[in-house]
């Protein structure tokens, strides 16, 4: 099977695509969330540092320092690089009189003490002169331009891989704290890779589980497909036999099994029927061929020829009867309902047959009686006559001399009924279920020539069914049999 056409592959592809979309979406959101989180933290850090710087500057105020100090800013002659040592010296010399820019020196120290942190600061005085800068500060940091003088909060800017926070003090100094973003970007990249790696692993597991689930779901389908392939190849006795009897597919498999069963049975029935029909036809053909061969083998007397012709005639008659029966069955099989239905009275039809059969019954020494109540139904009278003829001649044929055959018609529960009861030998219970089967002969010791081919009752039953009725039998060995025909009442 081409994998693109396979349902299993298609399920898997859709499943994979869905998982991929979900994971990509998840990763992007997680990455963005984390990035903004980390950035916010970094910004807060910068803010804290700015606040500390501002405090340090303002701290000068707290110590009773003149506002001029910060206003003037650190002296321009004091380069940032010397910062780390000088404030110490200043402190050692005592807090009594801090030199101008002392506060700046203090926070400069604060920054420098944590060298690992890529923080830096720059301070400009009002006159946009850079008055202090940490050693880590890149050269040429441009002084931020105050966009709105009324605004006094912390502002942020991004510049060549650095993030800088700045604020303006009321006197007009500009404090700037910056941080290189290289570490942050590296961390985010690492995080992204980690996220992608974990997602890929989970995606792989998800795909594997999906494959497994698809396989499980597809197993009954593959079983059905395999069994159907074998059955299609001619092994009609094969079945699907799935274990999942409750699932939708299990039910489908069971349904298919039942269908195959019926199909198989129908084929068997057909094969048996054909074989039986061929068998029944072969015997008379054998007789005709054999007799002809014998007659032609040498010169014979005219009596011999006459006997041969008589035998051939009997065989031909048998073949004719058989062919008619087979045609009858074929017609009945082809059309589910009998055509040519008219309103007719069962009693009337039965009466005619009773009269016809009387002579034959007398010959056999059988008493033929009837009790006929009018029973009007819609039926094909020729077909009904066929049933009557068959049932009556069977009764006469199987009953010994001195017995009785009773024909009755009546109406019961909206059905027109007709029964033929005999006091003959009866039929053994084991034969009753097969009695209406084609070519079934209950009494195998009876000769085939007189016993018929075993199609009569099968035809009668098919006729009854074609009229929406039924034909049934009750029998007790020793006491006789009773065949009952039930047809729906007219109107």
């Amino acid at each position, binding site marked *: 099977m081409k994998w693109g056409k396979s349902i299993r592959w298609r399920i898997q592809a859709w499943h994979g695509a869905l998982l991929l979309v979900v994971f990509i979406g998840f990763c992007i959101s997680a990455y963005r969330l984390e990035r903004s989180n980390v950035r916010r933290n970094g910004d807060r850090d910068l803010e804290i540092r700015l606040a500390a710087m501002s405090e340090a500057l303002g701290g000068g105020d707290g110590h009773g320092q003149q506002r001029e100090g910060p206003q003037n800013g650190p002296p321009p002659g004091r380069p940032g690089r010397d910062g780390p040592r000088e404030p110490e010296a200043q402190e050692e010399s005592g807090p009594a009189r801090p030199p101008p820019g002392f506060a700046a020196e203090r926070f400069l120290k604060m920054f420098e003490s944590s060298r690992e942190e890529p923080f830096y600061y720059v301070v400009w005085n009002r006159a946009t002169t850079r008055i202090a800068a940490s050693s880590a500060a890149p050269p040429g940091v441009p002084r931020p331009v105050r966009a709105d003088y009324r605004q006094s909060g912390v502002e942020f800017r991004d510049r060549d891989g650095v993030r800088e926070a700045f604020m303006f003090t009321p006197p007009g100094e500009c404090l700037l704290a910056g941080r290189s973003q290289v570490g942050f970007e590296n961390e985010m990249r690492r995080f992204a890779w980690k996220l992608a790696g974990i997602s890929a692993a989970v995606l792989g597991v998800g795909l594997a589980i999906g494959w497994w689930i698809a396989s499980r779901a597809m197993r009954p389908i593959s079983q059905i497909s395999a069994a159907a392939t074998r059955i299609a190849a001619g092994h009609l006795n094969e079945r699907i036999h799935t274990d999942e009897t409750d699932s939708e597919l299990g039910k489908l498999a069971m349904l298919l099994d039942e269908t195959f069963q019926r199909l198989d049975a129908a084929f068997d029935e057909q094969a048996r029927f054909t*074989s039986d029909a061929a068998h029944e036809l072969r*015997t008379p053909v*054998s007789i005709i061929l054999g007799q002809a061969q014998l007659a032609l083998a040498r010169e014979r007397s005219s009596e011999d020829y006459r006997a041969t012709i008589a035998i051939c005639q009997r065989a031909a008659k048998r073949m004719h009867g058989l062919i008619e029966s087979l045609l009858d069955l074929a017609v009945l099989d082809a059309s589910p309902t009998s055509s040519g239905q008219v309103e007719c009275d069962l009693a009337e039809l039965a009466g005619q047959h009773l009269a016809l059969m009387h002579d034959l019954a007398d010959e056999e020494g059988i008493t033929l009686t009837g009790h006929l109540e009018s029973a009007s139904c819609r039926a094909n009278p020729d077909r009904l006559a066929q049933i009557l003829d068959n049932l009556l001649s069977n009764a006469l044929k199987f009953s010994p001399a001195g017995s009785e055959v009773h024909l009755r018609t009546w109406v019961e529960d909206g059905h027109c009924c007709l029964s033929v009861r005999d006091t003959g030998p009866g039929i053994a219970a084991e034969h009753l279920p097969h009695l209406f089967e084609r070519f079934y002969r209950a009494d195998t010791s009876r000769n085939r020539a007189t016993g018929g081919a075993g199609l009569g009752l099968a035809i009668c039953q098919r006729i009854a069914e074609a009229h929406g009725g039924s034909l049934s039998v009750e029998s007790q060995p020793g006491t006789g049999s009773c065949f009952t025909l039930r047809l729906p009442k007219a109107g």
Partner: protein
Amino acid sequence: MRVLVVEDEPDLLRTLAQAMREEGHAVDEAADGDEALYKATEWDYDAIVLDVMLPGQDGFEVLKKVRAVKKTPVLMLTARTKVNDRIHGLDSGADDYLLKPVDLDELAARVRALIRRAHGDASAVIAIGGIRVDTAARRATRNGEPVPLTGREYALLEFLVLRRGRIVTRTDLYEHLHDENDTPTSNLVDVHVFNLRKKFGADFIVTLRGQGYSIEA
């Protein structure tokens, strides 16, 4: 040769029996399984033609029961074309199989072959000295000259020739040359033997006093 024909269809039984009789066999008839089994176990037939579909016991059952006590060659007749049927028949001990409708000449030839093979002769022509017996054509020659024979004479000759080197009792001869409906006079066999000796030479058939007849191999 005495042959039993079993067939439930009276017209077909009659046809088959007549064909066998015209082949020179003594033919017994049976129309159902029980009768067939009784006759087949009661008598030593040279061959049995047995239909599969029989009322009562079917042909397979009859065959199985006959096989338990007799080695009589059996040819089965069937109208069924199923291979299984044929395999089943041959496996249950049938020696040959024929499908209906039967060609009577083929049936006769197969029965002849069965009888011949049962006595260990693969060829249809059996030669003893200058005498050749053609079992297919039912003719005999002496020194290349055809010898005219009646049906009974030929049957007796063939019976003895197939059993050459062995002693054949008069009872055997009676039982195998006459069917169940014949009532032969007791010296009929002696008459036929006398006639055969006249045609093939006095020492062709040896009389063993008190035992029967024999042809030297």
